[in-house]
């Protein structure tokens, strides 16, 4: 029992054209929501790179854990909390402390124009360890994030972090790398080793259905005087 409607004498033509329209409409919808790939951030061939090659997290020689001391004269210098970071050609970006207590994923500020400082790591004035800042590439509600600028941040660029006491801390970018999110190195999250700054955002292909990117972009910088 097939329903045959007058005026539709070529079902094949209608079906094929209809499928085409559906495909185009779907493609249009995906264009609208941004189903694509963020500009690639490949490792930079920088001769002076601090961490060349794929070993993005290769820290300096691991140092033994400092013993607990109670005499204030022997306490290592402790940095105040970072409050802003100055990226080249951009306004100063506010930083707020973020944690990851009893959760597997890093907490990020809701506002994509702010970036988070991981409280479990070091701060810029600390004698040792990695200062970790995380920031949105983009967000559904807030548009492009402050760390979208990381995607094309060249090696050698100077970054300045200001702490809550008003002291500036200058860094020089040494590498930028893109890794699958599942390969995020645990060694980035340490208070040991030579002082360095690590900035993390997203990159790679955008998964429209799950609303996330496949990769992380990781920029490493080292303290500099001038």
């Amino acid at each position: 029992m097939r329903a045959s409607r007058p005026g539709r004498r070529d079902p094949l033509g209608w079906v094929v054209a209809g499928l085409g329209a559906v495909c185009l409409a779907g493609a249009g919808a995906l264009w609208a929501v941004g189903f694509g790939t963020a500009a690639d951030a490949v490792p930079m061939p920088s001769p002076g790179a601090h961490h060349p090659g794929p070993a993005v997290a290769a820290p300096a020689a691991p140092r033994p854990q400092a013993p607990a001391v109670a005499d204030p004269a022997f306490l290592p210098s402790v940095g105040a909390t970072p409050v802003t970071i100055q990226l080249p050609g951009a306004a100063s970006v506010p930083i707020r402390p973020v944690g990851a207590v009893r959760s597997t994923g890093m907490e990020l500020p809701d506002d994509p124009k702010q970036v988070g400082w991981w409280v479990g790591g070091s701060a810029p004035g600390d004698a040792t360890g990695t200062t970790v800042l995380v920031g949105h590439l983009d967000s559904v509600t807030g548009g492009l994030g402050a760390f979208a600028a990381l995607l094309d941040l060249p090696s050698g660029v100077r970054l300045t972090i200001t702490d809550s006491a008003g002291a500036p801390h200058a860094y020089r970018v040494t590498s930028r790398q893109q890794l699958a999110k599942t390969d995020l190195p645990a060694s980035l999250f340490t208070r040991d080793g030579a002082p360095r700054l690590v900035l993390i955002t997203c990159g790679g292909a955008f998964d429209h259905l799950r609303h996330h990117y496949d990769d992380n972009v990781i920029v490493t910088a080292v303290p500099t005087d001038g």
Partner: protein
Amino acid sequence: MSRPLTVVRALAIALAGLVLMAMGVGAASAAPSSQDTTWMVAAHQSNLTEIAAGKAAQDKASSQDIKDLGAMFVQMHTALDADLTAAAKNLGVALPDAPSAAQQATLASVGAKSGAAFDSAWVSSQIAGHRDTLAATQKEISSGSDPTVVGLAKAASPVVQQHLSSLLALPQAPSSVQAGTGGQAATEPAPVLLALTVVGALLLATGSLLLKRRRQLA
């Protein structure tokens, strides 16, 4: 000839003694430096903040570790603040009676959360607060003038360091960073999008052609 020399020596010793006395009195009675008073105000406001935060942790934290830290902070910052306010009174330094506006805003923001979100926000804000307090206290130890105030800073430093160490044991290293949810930065079309567009256009063209031919035949 020895008598004038003795008199001169005696006068010199007396003068030196007077100078030393004057210096000693001066050191004891001089007003604290701007660094000293700045640190006293900051340390007092930090104590008030940690006491309020410690009470909030005892009320709202879901983790027993954090409740215990809160209780310890209340007790130890109350003791530190008692010494600080007594010294400020002796030195004539006026102290504010509330945390700073920024500290109050953070206390309110953390206090508005509950459950695991409260615990996480509490630890983050406490690490930031104790870092700032410790950095300021180390600066007072190295750059302060008044011996009483520097002594207070030296006494506070290991206490704040111990609190910070306890707090730093709590955050776990994240296993992932999800830092993009909008897709606006994905400016290069994904291959599947291009394929969908091409296939759709071909199907639409074929369908139109079929319909047109049928119409012509009819």
